[in-house]
C-alpha cells in the first residue's frame, strides 16, 4: 500500500518537477514575478506574456517545481480575472484536500493538504504569478 507521502509524490508531480514543460526564461515577456520561501530557500521566477502564456524558473522542492509547471499549463490563455479565480480555487483545494474538476491536472497537488508545512510550497508559484500580473497591469 502506498503511504500518503508516496501518493503525494505521484507520477505527474515527479515528472513535472524533473522535466518541466513550461520551464525556462522566455525571450519575450511582458511582466515577471518572484516568489521566495525564506524558510527553505525555494525560489521561483514567473514570466507572463499578454495573452496568458506563462513560463517559470523554479529552484526548489518537487512540490513547488511541479506546482509551477502545472500552474503554467492551467493558466495558458487565461485572462487575469480567470487566473485570479483559478488561484482562489487552487488555494481552497490545497487547504481542504478536496479535488475540484475545474482545476484539471492541478488536482495532483490535492495531497499537500495532508502536509501542512508544504502547502506554502504549492502556493509559492501562484504568489509569483500574482506579482507578475500586478506588474502587467501597471505597465499594460
Amino acid at each position, binding site marked *: 500500500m502506498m*503511504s*500518503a*507521502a*508516496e501518493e*503525494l*509524490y505521484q507520477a505527474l508531480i*515527479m515528472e513535472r518537477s*524533473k522535466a518541466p514543460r513550461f520551464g525556462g526564461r522566455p525571450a519575450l515577456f511582458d511582466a515577471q514575478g518572484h516568489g521566495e520561501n525564506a*524558510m*527553505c*530557500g*525555494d*525560489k521561483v521566477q514567473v514570466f507572463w506574456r499578454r495573452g496568458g502564456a506563462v513560463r517559470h524558473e523554479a*529552484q*526548489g*522542492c*518537487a*512540490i513547488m517545481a511541479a506546482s509551477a509547471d502545472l500552474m503554467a499549463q492551467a493558466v495558458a490563455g487565461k485572462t487575469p480575472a480567470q487566473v485570479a479565480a483559478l488561484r482562489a480555487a487552487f488555494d481552497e483545494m490545497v487547504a481542504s484536500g478536496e479535488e475540484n474538476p475545474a482545476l484539471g491536472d492541478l488536482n495532483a497537488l490535492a495531497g499537500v493538504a495532508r*502536509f501542512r*508545512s*508544504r502547502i506554502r*510550497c504549492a502556493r509559492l508559484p501562484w504568489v509569483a504569478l500574482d506579482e507578475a500580473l500586478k506588474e502587467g497591469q501597471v505597465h499594460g
Partner: protein
Amino acid sequence: MSAREFNLDEIRKDFPILAQQVHGRALVFLDSAASAQKPRAVIEAMTHVMEAQYANVHRGLHWMSERTSDAYEAARDKVAAFLNARAREEIVFTRNATESINLVAYTYARTALRPGDAVVVSQMEHHANLVPWQILRDAHGVELRIAKITDAGEIDWESLESCFADGKVKLLACTHMSNVLGSYTPAERLAAFAHARGARILLDGCQAIVHRAVDVQAIDADFYVFSGHKLYGPTGIGVLYAKRELLDAMPPFMAGGEMIESVSYERATWAPPPHRFEAGTPAIIETIGLGAAIDYVRAIGFEAIAAHERALTEHGLKMLAGIEGVRVLGAAQDRGGVLSFTMPDAHAHDIATLLDRQGIAVRAGHHCAEPLMGRMGVSATARASFALYTTREEVDALGEGLLRIRRIFR
C-alpha cells in the same frame, strides 16, 4: 559525580516522548540539535515546583518565596559548576542563547567597543551570532568582519589572521560547534588567538554544550552562551557566562524590578551581577528545570555520552556514504553528531516530508545559517542530529528511509 552506567534502554525510558508514535510508526527523533527531548527528571522537577514549592523569587519574606529563591539560586550553582566558572555571579540567566548574545551586543559591545573597532564572526555562525553584530555595526559604527572557513568546515586560520591584521578587532564571536556542519572549533586556541591580539572572545556553545564537557576557565572564554532546551532542559531558559570583571563593567540590558539596588523617581542604581541582568520575574520554573537537566546529564557523564555519540556519528557517516548521490556537508576532523546532507533531485523539504511519513523527524532548510548555505554551495539541506538517547537502529531507519526516497526520485 559518579557516572551512572550508560544503558541505552534505560536512558530511553527516561524520555517519555520517545514511546510516542507518529503517522502510525515509532518516533525516530533525529532533530535534537534543534531542540532536545526532556527526561522525566526535568519534567518532574518542574511539576514539583508548581505543585509544591512555588512563589516569586528574591522578594517574598515568606517560606514559599524563600524556598523557591533557594531552588532558583541552586540552579545557578549547578550551571557554574557545570561550566567550571570561577564564581556563581558569572552566570546570568536569560531566555536563550540568542538573548545572551544580544545582551553582550547591546551592553558590553556598545560600551567597550568604539566606532572604528571591529567584531569578527566566522562563516559558519547561526543567525543568532551574526544578526546582532550586524545591528551593532549599523547602530554603533563598528565594523563586522567574516572569517572564512575551509571546505571541510573548519576555521581558516589564514583568513582569521588577516581579519585581525590591522589590530582593530576587539571581539571574536564564534560558534563552539556548527549546527549545520557538526564541526567543533578549537575553543582554547581561538581564545588564545584573540587574547594575544587584544580581543575578547564570545563562544556560542548551543551545540557543543550538549555533547562534551565545557570548562570556561580552561578555554579562557570571556563569554560563553547556551540554551537550556537543547541540553534536555526546558525552553525559555538560557545562560550567559561572562568573566566577573566584564559583567561588573557592563550596564543593564533591560530595566525593571529585580535588577536594581535602589530606585527613586529620579534615578536608580543597579544591582551587582548577575541580578543586574535579570530584570523582572525570571523563568523560575524553567531555571529549576535546567538545573535538573544538568544533574541528569552529569549523572550519565560526558565521557559516556561522547563515546556513544561518536559511534553513532561514525555509523551515520558510513551509512550516508553508502547511499549513491548523497553529499554530506563538511568533513571536519573534530565533528559531532550533526549531519547535514543533500540528495540529487530530492530537495531537503521533499526528504523531510517523506521521512516524516515514516516516523523519522529530521530538520530541513537553511538551519538559521543562510549565508553558510551559500558558502557551501547549497540552498538547503536535510539534517539528522543525534542525542544521548539516539540508537543505532534509528540511524539505520534513516538509511532505509533515504533509500526509499531515492527510489521515488530516481
